[in-house]
């Protein structure tokens, strides 16, 4: 400690009383290569403590004119350990960089205009490399590739439907009324991640019961991004790291950087994978006997008993779970990428063609993605980076989830006993399901629920070195991005299906949805770097930002069809709705970063933001940030075993703007007797609504042992959100029923631990592993209105409750024992938030064989399992006849659970924890050479091959209400999840 203070004092003296250094100019030339002797092109060579630097050329050579001698050259290259070299005079040097065993040297993109070395970072920013992301197995979408790979994240898939649909929360729930999803930025482009419903409600009637949500379960648009194009992902989990994104950053920010070309030989990669997908966890169906049918309250009547006896005699007992979900879907993924260029221009081209079938007939996902990234040096001081990505995807998602009409395949399946015959006759005509409104096999064969996306994302970044001298430089960085897509949805229910024919339903329905969405963003920054001879490096940035959003959704419904065409005008009755959403945000940002010899790194910054979504669009809201990282190992001598020791703390604020409709009191349009009518809406908009303000403080320490072969990081954070927006009840004599108001606060606290180790390092055997553990707990600390339940269907079916002093994601229900009821006459059965999560990544390479796997353990967290309730109500549950639940041993499981319905919700609120082998992959580089130096690799991989959970359904990861809002974890007959196996061949020229 004394040593530390001495050094600090000395530093300050040096800083204040600038010294005169010896002037002895001269050039150093050299060559940089890796440990196999390959030239490293574009490695950065820097005279330490100055901004004087260069990069290596095509042959790995460089020349640098030094300001002074003696000096230290710092040579760095992504993926390699940074090396320092003392030079006392001009001359020639040769440097070999070692592969980086750790992540410490990796540059982390955290800001709008600047990067920072991971070792100097004050936040626990999760970084995921392309190898971790896509190197193990083939995931169907980018978001599923993120599972278990970053601490502090909670990712929940809404269902197993092809095309994705997830909810991602970083460090807990940050909003009650709105979504807690993070902002996704790809190469500076703000990506739209909306979930836009297809308008299935006209048939499902899902919104006409206990919930007003249409429960269409659309995918979210991040699914369009091809994970194979991604170089790195950085996850800024809260305001302390993401404050510079201001009112876009309440849910955190996920910064995705795609692959860029490098000067040198053109590199061509081709890969093909073929595999299959199958149901992840078949439950089985109830095995009826003459006795159980006769004793059944639903089936114990002469007609059904006779039907069962006849079917059994004829051997016509079916396992409809297999019939409906038994498709082994073929998976195919073709990948071609190319990169290369010269010193002036580099390019990366990536293309993926994906074709995946689902586990239900006629479902699947097709995607074509083309990306071209070009970097060009216009002249010595001006660089431009251009990115472009075109995606076309088509997802056939099936017709699942809740309804109030018995029409979805999931609901209809729950109502059907095994002796019903639903198979088509020899002419292909499906019989009506005698036990339901729809024949789900017919629905699978005839109903379409398709989402087709055409999307273009483009960005340009202009970097101008306006001014450079020996120890200072001024750069201007202008960044623009836009993301525009058309989402076309078609939901078609032909008039030949059971629930549309013979006067049932609407005689055929086609719902055509057309959404055009454009999101644009731009920023302009000035970045001034000044390096002082005393080792103090100052980086000042100031800039402005702009982003806007425009969505225009038109849903047209047509019904009363004569034929089975789906064209709108084939239906006799045509109607439509339109929804537009527009917003504009403007902001500025200033930041000052001081770095003293990589020993002490301090940052202060301020973001200002205004938004058209706020009550007053021109009121500026300010969000400060400050952080400090101290690399103790750079300052004092530590025991040699401890090679790295950093302590860090960061503070920041950010916000979430109100939802689009929050500020408006509107008229509803209606009609009476053919006259158009305006009636005031019962929602009292708040014209002075302000953003939800988040404040986060984070503390942590990073340790490196044994030359950083073992790295340990520990982080604790407290994240509070104030001015949460609520819908508060108002006196109904005002003419309104609820008012939008800023009226609650909540707090998340959590711990994140990471341990990475290079366990074995030898010539032909390497084993490295990373273990992450994280936990988050949340509390509503202030609520200006009485506690209320939300997010589910009804309290007796399980619901979420917002209550002061309680978790915002707690799940309540009714309970039979009056002594256990709380003041709301309810009982807390659980919480959607897991107790903790853990992931364990392993990479093992043995010569040319490489095996990687990832285990993911989610402990605790509950779901509301209403699929189980529906099976029970229809007496078709797979464990209906078991007798392991009733404490008195009298009732079988089904009857026991039903006997509690209305008095206790306990049977249907279930532990949703799991242990999973998320991904495993084995790859072998064949001992052949393609062309000059090409390689050929064969591999096999699997996703979700091992799943251990108690949850009594297909998958504890489920959300009937999709990805938005609080209530992930309500299950109503979803598209079941699947596991995947793939075989790979990859060639590299």
């Amino acid at each position: 400690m004394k040593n530390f203070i001495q050094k600090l004092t000395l530093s300050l003296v040096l800083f204040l009383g600038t010294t005169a250094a010896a002037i002895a100019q001269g050039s150093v030339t050299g060559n940089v290569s890796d440990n196999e002797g390959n030239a490293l092109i574009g490695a950065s060579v820097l005279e330490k403590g100055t901004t004087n630097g260069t990069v290596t050329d095509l042959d790995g050579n460089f020349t640098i004119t030094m300001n002074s001698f003696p000096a230290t050259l710092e040579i760095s290259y992504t993926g390699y350990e940074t090396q320092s070299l003392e030079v006392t005079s001009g001359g020639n040097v040769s440097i070999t960089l070692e592969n980086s065993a750790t992540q410490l040297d990796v540059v982390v993109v955290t800001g709008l205009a600047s990067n920072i070395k991971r070792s100097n970072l004050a936040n626990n920013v999760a970084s995921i490399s392309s190898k971790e992301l896509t190197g193990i197995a083939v995931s169907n979408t980018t978001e599923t590739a993120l599972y278990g790979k970053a601490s502090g994240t909670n990712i929940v898939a809404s269902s197993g439907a092809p095309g994705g649909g997830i909810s991602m929360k970083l460090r807990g729930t940050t909003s009650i009324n709105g979504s807690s999803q993070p902002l996704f930025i790809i190469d500076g482009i703000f990506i739209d991640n909306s979930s836009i419903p297809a308008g299935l409600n006209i048939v499902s009637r899902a919104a006409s019961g206990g919930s007003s949500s249409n429960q269409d379960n659309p995918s979210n648009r991040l699914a369009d991004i091809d994970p194979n194009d991604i170089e790195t992902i950085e996850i800024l989990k809260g305001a302390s790291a993401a404050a510079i994104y201001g009112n876009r950053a309440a849910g955190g920010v996920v910064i995705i950087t795609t692959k860029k070309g490098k000067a040198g030989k053109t590199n061509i990669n081709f890969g093909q994978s073929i595999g299959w997908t199958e149901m992840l966890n078949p439950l089985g169906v109830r095995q009826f006997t003459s006795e159980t049918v006769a004793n059944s309250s639903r089936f114990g009547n002469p007609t059904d008993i006779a039907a069962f006896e006849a079917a059994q005699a004829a051997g016509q007992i079916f396992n409809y779970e297999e019939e409906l979900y038994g498709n082994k879907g073929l998976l195919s993924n073709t990948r071609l990428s190319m990169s290369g260029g010269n010193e002036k221009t580099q390019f990366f081209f990536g293309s993926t063609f994906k074709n995946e079938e689902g586990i239900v007939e006629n479902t699947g996902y097709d995607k074509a993605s083309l990306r071209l990234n070009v970097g060009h040096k216009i002249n010595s001081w001006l660089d431009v980076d251009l990115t472009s990505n075109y995606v076309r995807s088509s997802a056939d998602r099936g017709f699942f989830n809740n309804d109030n009409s018995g029409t979805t395949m999931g609901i209809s399946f729950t109502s059907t006993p095994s002796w019903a015959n639903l198979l088509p006759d020899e002419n292909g005509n499906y019989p009506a399901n005698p036990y339901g409104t729809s024949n789900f096999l017919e629905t699978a064969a005839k109903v379409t629920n398709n989402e087709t996306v055409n999307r273009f994302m483009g960005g340009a970044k202009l970097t101008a070195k306006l001014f450079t001298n020996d120890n200072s430089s001024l750069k201007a960085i202008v960044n623009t991005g836009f993301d525009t897509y058309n989402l076309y949805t078609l939901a078609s229910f032909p008039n030949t299906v059971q629930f549309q024919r013979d006067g049932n339903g609407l005689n055929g329905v086609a719902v055509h949805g057309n959404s055009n969405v454009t999101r644009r963003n731009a920023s302009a920054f000035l970045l001034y770097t000044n390096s002082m001879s005393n080792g103090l490096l100052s980086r000042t940035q100031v800039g402005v930002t702009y982003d806007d959003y425009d969505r225009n959704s038109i849903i047209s419904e047509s019904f009363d069809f004569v034929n089975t065409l789906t064209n709108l005008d084939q239906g006799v009755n045509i109607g439509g709705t339109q929804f537009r959403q527009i917003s504009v945000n403007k902001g500025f940002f200033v930041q000052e970063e001081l770095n003293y010899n990589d020993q002490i790194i301090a940052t202060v910054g301020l973001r200002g933001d205004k938004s058209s979504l706020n009550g007053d669009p021109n009121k500026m809201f300010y969000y400060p940030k400050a952080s400090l990282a101290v690399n103790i190992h750079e300052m004092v001598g530590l025991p040699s075993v401890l090679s790295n020791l950093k302590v860090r703390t960061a503070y920041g604020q950010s916000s979430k703007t109100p939802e689009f409709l929050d500020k408006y009191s509107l008229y509803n349009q209606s009609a009476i007797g053919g006259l158009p009518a305006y009636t005031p809406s019962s929602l009292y908009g708040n014209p002075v609504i302000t953003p939800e303000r988040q404040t986060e403080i984070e503390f942590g320490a990073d340790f490196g042992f044994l030359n950083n072969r073992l790295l340990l990081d520990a982080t604790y954070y407290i994240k509070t959100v104030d001015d949460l927006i609520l819908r508060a009840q108002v006196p109904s004599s005002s003419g309104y029923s609820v008012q939008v108001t800023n009226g609650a606060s909540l707090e998340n606290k959590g711990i994140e631990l990471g341990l990475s180790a290079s366990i074995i390092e030898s010539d032909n055997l390497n084993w490295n592993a990373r273990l992450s553990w994280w936990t988050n707990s949340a509390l509503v600390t202030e609520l200006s209105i009485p506690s209320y339940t939300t997010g589910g269907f009804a309290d007796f079916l399980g619901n979420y409750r917002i209550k002061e002093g309680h978790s915002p994601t707690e799940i309540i229900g009714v309970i039979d024992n009056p002594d256990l009821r709380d003041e709301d006459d309810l009982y807390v059965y659980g919480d959607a938030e897991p107790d903790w999560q853990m992931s364990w990544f392993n990479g093992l390479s043995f010569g040319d064989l490489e095996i990687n796997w990832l285990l993911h353990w989610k402990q605790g967290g509950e779901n509301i399992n209403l699929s189980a309730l529906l099976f029970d109500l229809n007496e078709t549950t797979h464990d209906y006849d078991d007798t392991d639940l009733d404490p008195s041993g009298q009732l079988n499981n089904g009857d026991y659970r039903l006997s509690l319905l209305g008095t206790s919700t306990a049977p249907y609120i279930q532990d949703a924890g799991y242990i999973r082998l998320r991904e495993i992959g084995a790859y072998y580089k064949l001992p052949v050479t393609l062309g000059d130096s090409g390689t050929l690799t064969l591999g096999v991989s699997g996703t979700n091959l091992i799943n251990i959970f108690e949850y009594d359904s297909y998958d504890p990861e489920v959300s009937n209400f999709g990805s938005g809002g609080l209530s992930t974890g309500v299950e109503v007959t979803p598209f079941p999840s699947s596991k995947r196996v793939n075989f790979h061949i990859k060639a590299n020229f």
Partner: protein
Amino acid sequence: MKKLNILFMFAIGLFLVSCEIEPISNPNDPAQGDVTQDASISELNALTSGIEDLLRSEVGFYYDVVSIIGRDYWFFTGSDPRYTGEVLGKGSSQLDNAGFYGNRPYAARYRTVKAVNLLTEALANTTAPLTDAEKSGYLGFAKTMQAYELHLALNLQYQNGIRVDVSDPNALGDFVSYDEALSFIANLLNEANTDLGAAGDAFRFTLTSAFEGFNTPASFATFNRGIAARIALYQGDMSAASGYLASSFMDMSNPLSGGPARFYANAAGDQANPLFRVPGNSDGIIAHPSWVAAVDPADARAAKIASREEISLDDLTGDHDVVVFGSLDDNVPFMTNEELILISAEANVGSDNSAAVAAIDAIRTANGLAAYGGGTSDSELMDEIAAQRQLSLFGLGHRWVDMRRWNRLDEVPLDRVDDDVWVQFPRPVSEN
């Protein structure tokens, strides 16, 4: 030099993004504030139709609860036990201040009140080419309907009183007593009547066919006066009631002619009659046995019920469906000529009993009964008027209100040992 150019462009960029953000109007639906600031004639007409639309909002609940408590009928439904539970005071159950049955019809009435206030504001601000007479026409219609809606809310809340000044949602007026509220409503009706008098020959807006015969300022004023007569009756001011009746649409010569009504149509985008239920179903409105017993089979009003298979629910048993409304397209009247004649009868009791008997006879003979042959003392006539009102206004939300104002709630028949007849609904929880 080039670098300076870039710097210059950069400065321009800074300037561009630092300017103001234009407020964005919601493009999906019109904002209340925007319409209020300067409404076009078509928008003012949409507001007027909006008022007509809101008059029917949740009104099915109003008629059901008033008719159930007044023992006109029961509502048998498997989907909600409260209609045969709390509303009838079964056992120890109480009306719930968060119950939908009392709060939804109450809240909906105030939505109409709000719609009228917004229209009034819009009329004050509009620059559309409207004459003063035309503006008076809008006001006369809107204020009449506002008064009508306040009186329905008051019927539910009774001695709890209601708020009458609700123009500013952030500063709602205090609750006023039942009597004060009635005076407020009476004054509002008179104000509206004055407006209608200054409104010229025709309205600038269109009313639906449910206002057939009441769709000019002069003919609509006869409805306004009819409501004024009802309020005067509630106030016990019989001479005022008689006075208003003279200018109302009362027609002694054609007693069964109807009156203005809420429009319903079983068509896409419109609303179907909420009080019609298919007869014979297990979910249905079942005539109270006391009403079945009260109606003479020869009385034309016996057609308001239809016999059915006996049905029981919650220890209640009935054998007649209520068929006051015959289809989903039937309109629901605000007020009928029969009611005006019966108001006239009641207003004359004690001052001109023979006029009262004449009014009673108009009703009786029109419905196929013999002329009144009973005693003509005040109390005997009041009994007869009560009986006629029970039959003529069956299912139209009067019995409970009538028995309450006559202090005869204890005569309402109870069906189960611990049933109750409630005096009023609790003040909705949102108002506390």
